[in-house]
Structures are given as structure tokens and as C-alpha cells.
């Protein structure tokens, strides 16, 4: 999916003090107010997500109970679902009861396995989280140096290669990347096993052996996105006076690039790592089915095939919540990353 990046954080664009030095000692008391405002701003977003998920089932043409139960349902089953969803109540009461249950951590019960959705999600959490963390580490290790190099040698062949690789990364679907990697590294070269998952508790070696291909697959779009963003942010910063000053006072290029320039380019890069997280969630669903990993993505696919709506609904609420939380943390971290930003 070609991602669209935007600076939509509502933050003031950082202004330069001409020196570009960070000053971590000065913390303003006004920041607490900013923290509180940002945390509160996440509430309506989650409310809209919840409302949307709630209305989706009710607004789909047809009887919600029949939609959930499928074509083969008996009248008894339909009645059971209606009672479980509270469909006999007026719609606003339904919504309030539903939200109240969510607040108490009750996400409903799977129609397929009759287990609580929260239990199902908790069971599948570990593979997905370890895969996600490995992906983010790989992404940052690969894409940030790529972007810095491209900006540093702007217009050169390095730049062209990085930019072409990033367009390719956007355009090749995750599952195609996955199968190409399996074909080359697992089937042809035999470096790693084809599919499956080993928990990190069984040792870091066995975990990496199985997780490295899926993580590379998943990071392909992410790397493309962040390399582009790093390049763009670095290009902006490299034109600043303080970079020239740093060079003029004889600092070596490495220090100029990484200590002065990259640090000042960090805010937009971090923003994109946050917004790109939604891409990764989408990628997880596909990657896990390609590599046969028993995580949240597989849970999603199993739920689709069984039309297990409560599980799908729970997964949407859960992943959207994580997305909002991560972007909230990133917003809050701006204050520490770039002390020039005042609220």
C-alpha cells in the first residue's frame, strides 16, 4: 500500500535557534498541560472507533443475528445471538451496554470457540509482538542510515538507488516479498526453515532463525517509508546554518550528520514511524498467513473464514487502541526529543 505521510500532529513546526543544540535541563511546567491535552485528545478518537465498530454490524443490511450466524443457523441459534448482543433493546441502550462491557474488559465471546475474545487475543499476542519488535529494530537499523546516506549524497547514484529501492518497497505486495524470500533463502539456499514460529523463550537463536524472514518481509514497506522520510527530513536540516557552522568548526562528517543533523531531523522521522505502524498491523495479517505464524494475524484470518464477527470486532478495537497509544507516546516524546518545541 503506498502510504501517505502527513505532518498532521497539530504540532507547531520547530523553529531554529540558530545553534541547534539540545538542552534537556530546561523543562517547562506548561508541558504537563500539553501531556494532559494529548491524552484527552485520544479519547474522542477511540470513541469514534468504538461507534464505528458498533454501527458497522447494525447498519449492514439484514438481521445482524442472521449475518453473524450464517445461512445454516437454526431459529434457536439466532435467538441466542440476539440475546447475547442485546438486539431486543433500543439501539442507544445497546450501545451504552456495549461500551460499559468494553470498559470492563468484556469484548464478547467468539462464536466459533465460545472463548472470550480477550483470552483469544492474549493467547496470540506473543508471536505478533515479538515479530513487530524485531521488524521495527530491523527497519530502523536499515532505513535510517539509508535515508541519511541518500540525503548526504543528494542526487548521486546512492540517492538514486535508495529512492528506487523505496519505490519498489512500496509497490511489491508483502505476500509477494514473503514468497520470494522463502523461495530464495529457505528453499533454494536452505539457510532457514520455510515456515512456522519458535517462541523467544526457547532461545534467541531458534527464534531468529524462524522470525528473520517474516520480519524482513514485514519491514519492506516500512523501510521504504522511513528511508524516504529520513531523506526528506535530512535534506531540510542539512541546509540549516548550524550544519554549516558545525562543518566550519571542523567537525568530521559523521558527527555533523548523526549528532547535529539527524538529531534535528528526528521529529518527522519518529512521526512516520508512528503513522507507519498502521501499515505494519495490516502487513502482520498477511505475513503471518504466508509464514504460518500463530499470531494475531492468523487469528484474524481464521475469524474471517468462520465469519466470527465478535473476534474481528475485538481485533479492530485492540489494534486501533494500540495504534492510538503508540502515536500518543510518540507525540509525548517530541517534548524530550526536541526541547525547542514548547507548548
Amino acid at each position, binding site marked *: 500500500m*503506498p502510504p501517505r505521510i502527513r505532518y498532521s500532529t497539530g504540532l507547531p513546526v520547530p523553529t531554529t535557534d540558530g545553534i541547534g543544540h539540545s538542552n534537556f535541563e530546561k523543562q517547562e511546567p506548561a508541558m504537563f498541560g500539553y501531556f494532559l491535552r494529548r491524552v484527552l485528545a485520544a479519547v474522542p478518537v477511540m470513541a469514534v472507533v468504538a461507534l464505528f465498530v458498533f454501527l458497522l454490524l447494525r447498519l449492514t443490511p439484514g438481521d445482524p443475528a442472521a449475518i453473524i450466524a450464517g445461512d445454516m443457523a437454526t431459529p434457536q441459534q439466532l435467538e441466542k445471538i440476539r440475546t447475547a448482543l442485546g438486539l431486543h433493546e433500543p439501539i442507544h441502550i445497546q450501545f451504552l451496554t456495549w461500551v460499559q462491557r468494553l470498559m470492563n474488559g468484556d469484548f464478547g465471546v467468539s462464536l466459533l470457540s465460545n472463548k472470550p475474545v480477550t483470552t483469544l487475543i492474549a493467547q496470540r499476542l506473543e508471536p505478533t509482538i515479538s515479530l513487530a519488535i524485531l521488524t521495527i529494530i530491523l527497519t530502523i537499523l536499515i532505513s535510517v542510515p539509508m535515508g541519511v546516506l541518500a540525503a548526504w549524497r543528494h542526487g548521486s547514484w546512492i540517492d538514486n538507488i535508495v529512492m528506487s529501492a523505496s519505490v519498489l518497497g512500496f509497490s511489491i505486495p508483502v505476500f509477494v516479498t514473503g514468497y520470494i524470500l522463502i523461495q530464495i533463502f529457505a528453499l533454494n539456499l536452505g539457510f532457514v526453515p520455510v515456515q512456522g514460529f519458535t517462541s523467544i523463550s526457547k532461545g534467541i537463536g531458534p527464534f531468529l532463525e524462524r522470525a528473520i524472514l517474516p520480519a524482513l518481509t514485514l519491514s519492506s514497506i516500512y523501510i521504504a517509508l522511513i528511508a524516504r522520510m529520513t531523506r*526528506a527530513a535530512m535534506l531540510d536540516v542539512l*541546509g540549516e546554518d548550524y550544519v554549516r557552522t558545525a562543518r566550519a568548526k571542523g567537525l568530521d562528517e559523521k558527527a555533523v550528520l548523526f549528532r547535529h543533523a539527524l538529531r534535528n531531523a528526528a521529529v518527522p522521522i519518529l512521526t512516520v514511524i508512528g503513522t507507519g505502524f498502521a501499515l505494519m498491523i495490516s502487513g502482520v495479517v*498477511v505475513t503471518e498467513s504466508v509464514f504460518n505464524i500463530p499470531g494475531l494475524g492468523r487469528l484474524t484470518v481464521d475469524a474471517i473464514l468462520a465469519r466470527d464477527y465478535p473476534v474481528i470486532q475485538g481485533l479492530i478495537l485492540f489494534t486501533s487502541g494500540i495504534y492510538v497509544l503508540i502515536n500518543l507516546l510518540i507525540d509525548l516524546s517530541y517534548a524530550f526529543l526536541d526541547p525547542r518545541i514548547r507548548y
Partner: protein
Amino acid sequence: MATSVERRVEPVIRRRILPVVEVRGLGFASILAGICLLVIVLTGIFAPLIAPYDPIQMNPAVRLKPASDTFLLGTDAYGRDLFSRIVYGARISLTVGIGAAIISVAIGLPLGLLAGFFRILDAILMRIMDGLMAIPSILLAIAVVSLAGAGLWTVLVAITIPEIPRVVRLVRSVVLTAREEPYVEAAIAVGSSLPKIMWRHLMPNTLAPLIVQATYICASAILIEAILSFLGAGIGTETPSWGNIMSEGRVYFQLKPSLIFWPGLVLSICILSINLLGDAARDLLDPRLKQRGGLK
């Protein structure tokens, strides 16, 4: 040296909506992309003339045959010609891509114009859009398809919903800057009607960025359709689409990888071409972004 990084030149105010397209300014890559896309579009339109076999007709006698003179790319597990199926698959992908781009612009443009113009509406609408954008688009699409059942229309709706907020945000941001312009003030002063101000004075500003955005939506929609079909939540399996072909090929991957690689290759080329054309359109329409390497 990196010190030669050019300062960004302030853009010349352009009054034309669409600058005259200079073909010479286009890079080799975008011309190649244009040709690839043209070939795919023509293939989709003339699919019945190009495909040597019926893409749906099963023939167990020739299952999983390798590529040969009779079957250009071999056959799948049901003995259907892979080449013919890929040719027909272009129809679904292009329909979904173009359809999603048109529908999301048709809904997002008026919403964005209103949000950019009326403050109260803006606050409400933007909260809704923020919420929609927090839902990962694949999961949202999956939820819609699992509720409403497989089918072209369902898939189209499922793909379009998550794209709308992006269009609304884009249009709104353009309107927010444009409405401070003197010509809008002048239009208000001479008593132009509100719909006229919005349509004649504000809307044209959004066209250039919208065209670029629409190409990205088109690429994204084609990709999501393929993913949905691949996961088994797309258009019904009886219709050949690139995602469906790959989904069925998964089981036989170790036996016959070409069932995944050929549709995957065509899909990648298609998306790549649209993205490159989008980049070219952006460079032509908004030269300011060119140097930054794009903020898609």
C-alpha cells in the same frame, strides 16, 4: 558535497489549474510506467480477445502443467490456463482501483470543502476522520466484507471507506489556506453565493493535489483487493483476480511456485507503474515537493 544542497526556491504563483504537461520533462521511468500501465489496461479491456482459454472452465486432465506452447504459463490445480486467468484478473484489479479512486474523491471532496469552510462542522468531521484513520485499513475492509459477504461492490465499499478520510484531510488543508486568499475575499465581497465560492473559487485549488492522491488511492486499492482475495475475504473465488490466483496457488507453492510468482509479478508491475505515474504527476503539478523526494 552535501553543502551544495539547494535552498528551496519559493514557488512562482501558478494560476493555471493544470500546467501544460511537458513530456520532455518526464523521466525514463515514468514513460516506461505509462507504457506498462497502458498494456495492462488494454489487456483488461480486450481480455476475451487475448486470453487463449476460458479462465473459469476447469479441466482436470491438465492440472498443474508446466509452461509450454499450449499453456503459455502452465495451468493451475484445476487445469485452468494461468495466462488466461491473469489476463482476466486485470479487469478486477483495474475496476477496483479506478472505482475506489473515483468514489473516495466523490465523497471526500464535498466533505473536505465543507470542513475547510465551516469551523463547527470541521471539528466534528475531523474527529470522525481521525477515528476512521486509527483503524488499520485491512482490518476495516475485512470487517465490512465479513459482514456484507463477498462481492465486487462489497470489496469496493470496504476499500473506499478507509481512503475517504485521507481525501477529506487533503481537501480541507488546501481549502484552509485558499480561503484566506484575496480572490476569495473579493468573491465574498461582491456577494457570490456560497456554493459558487466553494465550487468555482476553492474547489479548483484542490484539483492538482487530488489527482496525485487519486493515483495513490488507485494503487493502494489494487493492493488491498489483492490482499483481501489472498486472505479469502475478497471477491468470490469463482472470479479470477490476481489475489484469488495467488490464494489458490498458496497450497501448491512448493510444487509450482509460478502460480504465485506470475500474478505477483504482474500485480507488482501494475502498482509500481501507478505509483511512478503518481510521482510524475506530483512533480509536474507541484514542483516544490520534487526535491524533497516526495511525501506521499
